[in-house]
């Protein structure tokens, strides 16, 4: 046995030639089915690991490329998602605005808040609607939650709105449940209250609306809710502290109610009076 091995090693070139020729002839003489089986076996056992390794390296390269592409896509999608979220929020706001617009029988002009008074607390805002859109002086301004203020200056494209929180803005309000009228006051622009008779029936949680007595705001517009009722220095009165329903800090869209003040009819007459020199 050993001598055969030694012979093969000594004449390894010829042995290799014989072996490979025999193998080749065997494969050549095999029928088609057997040839297919042999080639399949060879492909799987010899070339598949090679191909697998090659495909693995290709896959790794593809993963890097895909990773790069996905990162770019992710960034683009993030921007898009942010935009869509903003649009969704705007859509929601506009839907609510539309709801309030349908519930009101007044002529409402939507306007975007474009500027706030640069002071803390701010007392007025500028809206993107002016004379060209039919906005007039003293027109009430509301949003979906309630009264915001009134127009105090009108320019062709923009208007200045005095907010309820301005201490100078006194508005006639009433307790919706008892129809008790009062004048809304604001000391600092952060707390809001009104005085009423000590025997008046008012309790925390009561809704406060406009009374319609000032001539500017129609009656029944939402103003806020009673937070607490406290004693006044004058024993004949008591002080009602309330929370306004409007969130002035996050106000983006408002409505101008295209109403002329109730006293505008008299104004012409007042203006026509001629004083003697």
């Amino acid at each position, binding site marked *: 046995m050993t001598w055969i091995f030694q012979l093969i090693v000594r004449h*390894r*070139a010829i042995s*290799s*030639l014989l072996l*490979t*020729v025999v*193998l*080749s*002839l*065997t*494969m*050549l*003489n*095999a029928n*088609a089915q057997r*040839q*297919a089986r*042999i*080639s*399949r076996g*060879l*492909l799987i056992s010899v*070339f598949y690991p090679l191909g697998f390794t090659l495909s693995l390296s290709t896959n790794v390269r593809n993963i890097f490329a895909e990773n790069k592409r996905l990162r770019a896509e992710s960034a683009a999608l993030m921007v898009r998602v942010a935009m869509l979220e903003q649009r969704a929020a705007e859509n929601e706001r506009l839907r609510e605005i539309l709801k309030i617009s349908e519930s009101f029988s007044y002529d409402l002009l939507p306007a975007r808040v474009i500027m706030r008074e640069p002071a803390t607390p701010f007392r007025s805002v500028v809206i993107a609607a002016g004379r060209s859109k039919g906005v007039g002086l003293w027109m009430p301004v509301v949003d979906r939650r309630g009264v915001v203020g009134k127009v105090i200056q009108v320019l062709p494209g923009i208007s200045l709105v005095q907010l309820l929180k301005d201490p100078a803005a006194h508005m006639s309000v009433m307790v919706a449940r008892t129809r008790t009228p009062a004048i809304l006051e604001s000391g600092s622009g952060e707390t809001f209250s009104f005085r009423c008779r000590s025997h008046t029936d008012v309790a925390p949680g009561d809704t406060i609306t406009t009374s319609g007595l000032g001539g500017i705001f129609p009656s029944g517009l939402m103003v806020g809710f009673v937070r607490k009722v406290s004693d006044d220095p004058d024993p004949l009165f008591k002080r009602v502290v309330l929370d306004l329903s409007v969130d002035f800090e996050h106000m983006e869209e408002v409505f101008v109610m295209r109403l002329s003040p109730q006293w505008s009819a008299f104004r012409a007459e007042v203006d026509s009076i001629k004083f003697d020199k």
Partner: protein
Amino acid sequence: MIPTTLKWIGLLVVCLLVQGTIGHAITIAGTCPDFVLVGLFMVAIRNGPMAAILGGFVLGLTQDLYAPSILGQNALAQTLTGAFIGIFNDKVMRTDAWMKAVILLSAFVIHDTIYLVTGIAKEHGSYSALPVELLVRTLPKAVYSVAVVGVFFLWDSLLKPNLRK
């Protein structure tokens, strides 16, 4: 340092890839150079019959795997051609460039003869077409391949040393 065996295996793989990719792109009048046989020639002439036989068998078998119906035909042709070229390897005798060209031309003829004979024998065809086939297909292919190898040879032996200087 890459081991010599790996270097030669790499060369054969490159030859197979080149044949499969740009081989057909440089076809002239239906004739394209056979880079696989050129690769086998280079391995055989440097390493002797043993490497040539094994290299030729694996190369041929790889080519056969593309078309399983002729399994063994390329393997046999490449093996015997490798054995033939291996006889004239550099370890045994020093041959000049012209001699190498003649050996390569002969290798082409031997290869194609074996390939065609086995093919005809398997299909029980006629051998009368064999000389024509060798003349019309093998000879132009061999000349083209030798010319391509000659360009590389000229670059390697004449131009590169001059550039180094």
